[in-house]
């Protein structure tokens, strides 16, 4: 099998898996006072320190969660609620048109259920946000804004956003800035303090850690109202028995991914560039989406004119190649990607897209397998798509 869907999830690193298994064998609730509890607590706190150290945060700024979606929801809803409670006029959320659904739908929920106003920031044809647009937005509505949330790097097209610039604009208006950095950590340099963001989402399974564990880095002076109430673990912002083994493995993976980032990015980007070049040669009319320079090293995203992405996916899957249309499904039915639509693509181009993402286990053989299967798949997908035209 050629696994070209590392942005969906990537295999666990051996050291993370070993750390998980070793820790999971030990009994102990990190909130218990006895020796077993203290031992678990120590593992959690060491992990917190490891994560903080490599991501440029203080240990107290690391809130362990059940993964990326929870972290995004906690940041968006929690900061909104806390800010509105302190300043009733702050009911506006500023976000981007290309966010992951974990942010997009949380913002939509606030608009629908909590009466929030939303300022959506547009992107250019490469999927890139313009800090100037944020400046204009905040100049007009700054005193009403509860928070700004914009992703560090896009999960579909791989475009990396000018996060530090955006965060600086928000900071100048005294507005907390949250960034979903799920796709960024381990792929590009990410430093919480240096970036100037108030909150940052990271998750384990995109960087070689386990699924179901992640963190929200939340600056000490930023308040967030909890989503989950209970035992008050994690700074009273997030309750729930700490997943000691998951947290330990997560920290091992974060540390390895961040420390190895440069070397990883150089190797994977070279392989990705080869993939892009060979796809272009195999299918000359292909359109390469996303920012050509400021992009994730493992991401290659294309539109295949005259094809449907889901037909291509089926055909490549049948040849043992795993990739993604990158966009969300509704009842299993592929929807045109909101990211591509926001980049100005029409419905057909949005539906004709396919994402190949490389990762730490990728090799040239994976690219070879893709190139071997792609031309025939494109031919067949084109024949199938031509049936769709009105009869």
């Amino acid at each position, binding site marked *: 099998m050629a696994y070209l869907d590392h942005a969906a999830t990537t295999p666990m690193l051996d050291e993370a898996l070993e750390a998980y298994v070793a820790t999971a064998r030990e009994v102990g609730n990190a909130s218990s006072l006895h020796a077993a509890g203290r031992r678990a607590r120590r593992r959690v706190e060491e992990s917190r320190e490891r994560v903080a150290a490599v991501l440029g945060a203080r240990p107290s700024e690391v809130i362990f969660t059940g993964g990326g979606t929870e972290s995004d929801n906690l940041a968006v809803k929690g900061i909104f609620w806390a800010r509105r409670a302190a300043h009733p006029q702050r009911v506006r959320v500023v976000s981007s048109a290309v966010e992951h659904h974990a942010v997009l739908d949380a913002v939509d929920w606030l608009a629908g259920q909590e009466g929030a106003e939303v300022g959506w920031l547009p992107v250019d044809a490469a999927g890139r946000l313009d800090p100037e647009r944020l400046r204009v937005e905040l100049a007009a509505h700054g005193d009403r804004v509860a928070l700004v949330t914009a992703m560090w790097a896009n999960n579909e097209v791989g475009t990396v956003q000018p996060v530090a610039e955006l965060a600086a604009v928000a900071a100048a208006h005294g507005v907390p800035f949250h960034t979903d950095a799920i796709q960024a950590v381990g792929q590009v340099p990410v430093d919480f303090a240096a970036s100037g963001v108030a909150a940052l989402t990271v998750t384990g399974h995109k960087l070689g850690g386990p699924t179901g564990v992640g963190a929200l880095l939340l600056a000490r002076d930023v308040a967030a109202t909890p989503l989950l109430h209970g035992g008050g673990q994690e700074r009273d912002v997030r309750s729930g028995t700490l997943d000691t083994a998951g947290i330990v493995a997560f920290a091992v993976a974060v540390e390895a991914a961040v420390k190895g980032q440069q070397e990883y990015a150089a190797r994977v980007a070279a392989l990705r560039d080869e993939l892009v070049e060979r796809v272009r040669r195999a299918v000359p009319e292909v359109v390469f989406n996303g920012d050509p320079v400021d992009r994730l090293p493992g991401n290659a995203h294309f539109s295949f004119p005259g094809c449907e992405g*889901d*037909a291509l996916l*089926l*055909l490549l*899957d*049948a040849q043992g190649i795993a990739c993604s249309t990158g966009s969300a*499904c509704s*009842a*299993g*039915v*592929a929807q045109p990607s909101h990211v591509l639509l926001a980049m100005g693509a029409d419905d057909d181009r949005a539906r004709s897209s396919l994402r190949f993402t490389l990762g730490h286990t990728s090799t040239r053989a994976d690219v070879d397998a893709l190139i071997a299967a792609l031309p025939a798949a494109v031919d*067949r*997908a084109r*024949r*199938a798509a*031509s*049936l769709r035209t009105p009869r």
Partner: protein
Amino acid sequence: MSGGVDSAVAAARAVEAGHDVTGVHLALARNPQTYRTGARGCCTLEDSRDARRAADVIGIPFYVWDMADRFHEDVVDDFVAEYAAGRTPNPCLRCNEKIKFAAVLDRAVALGFDAVVTGHHARLGADGLLRRSVDLAKDQSYVLAVLTRAQLDRSIFPLGDSTKAEVRAEAARRGLAVADKPDSHDICFIADGDTRGFLAQRLGEAPGDVVDAVSGAVVGSHSGAYAYTVGQRRGLHLDRPAPDGRPRYVLSITPKTNTVTVGPAEALEVAEVHATRPVWTGGERPTAPVECQVQLRAHGDVVPATVEVTADGLAAELRRPVRGVAAGQAIVAYRPDPAGDVVLGSATITG
């Protein structure tokens, strides 16, 4: 794979027969309901998950194909238009003709597949003849008879040799959780089963007269002629009883004058049926009158008849008169055969 037991077992049998099988679930509703209520409707998200789970157990890839627009145009809109024209459509037949063995089959062939496998209860053997299922109560050859030779040549019906009970038992043996899922009934896109309400929503109120065929007198009123089907007795709400005190039935619907004509049961009896758009799959198009059996609606009685090709379709002379023959339904001609009655051909009843 609808999420029901038949398509799941059909897929499993196709795999066992050595085919390289991919499961496909059709998304037909624009706004799928999350849960089915009772045995009504299909194509809910729950059905889609049931189908995916079955595919996982069988060990085949599974995809959802979005056919909602095609289904709406070719089946739902057609259904409404047929009722508006005073006819009684069969949407399952139309779906087979236009969606499952047309849009789906064409797409599949373009993608490199050879055939569509479904869980229909009908037999299609090496001789290429479409025959009734061994389970006559579940036989679906009537709604498949509309398929052309080319469509049948790319169709596989693995369940025709089994009864429904055997299919359910096999599903249980194979560990398919849908083994005891209730059969779906009614029309899948009318989830609450209220066909009249569904049509009223789309066609609006159109009040008109109910006229007695014998006296010519207006005996009642209706709020839309489309809500009536030939042979219908219930729900006529007539103001005046018939002189003989016997029940009256819908004899015909005339969209031009928006009239529903009613009369006694005997007046429903039809001995000659005309039909259009014939399809002959049981052999060559007949050149001489054929002695055969005909079926005039789904799960309807079978009547001996002589069928003859006409300029615009076919004509059938029934050996004994039949009640409740509705335009828009299919007439299917069968040749009795110990190995399963063979579908000779099919056409759409005009009168």
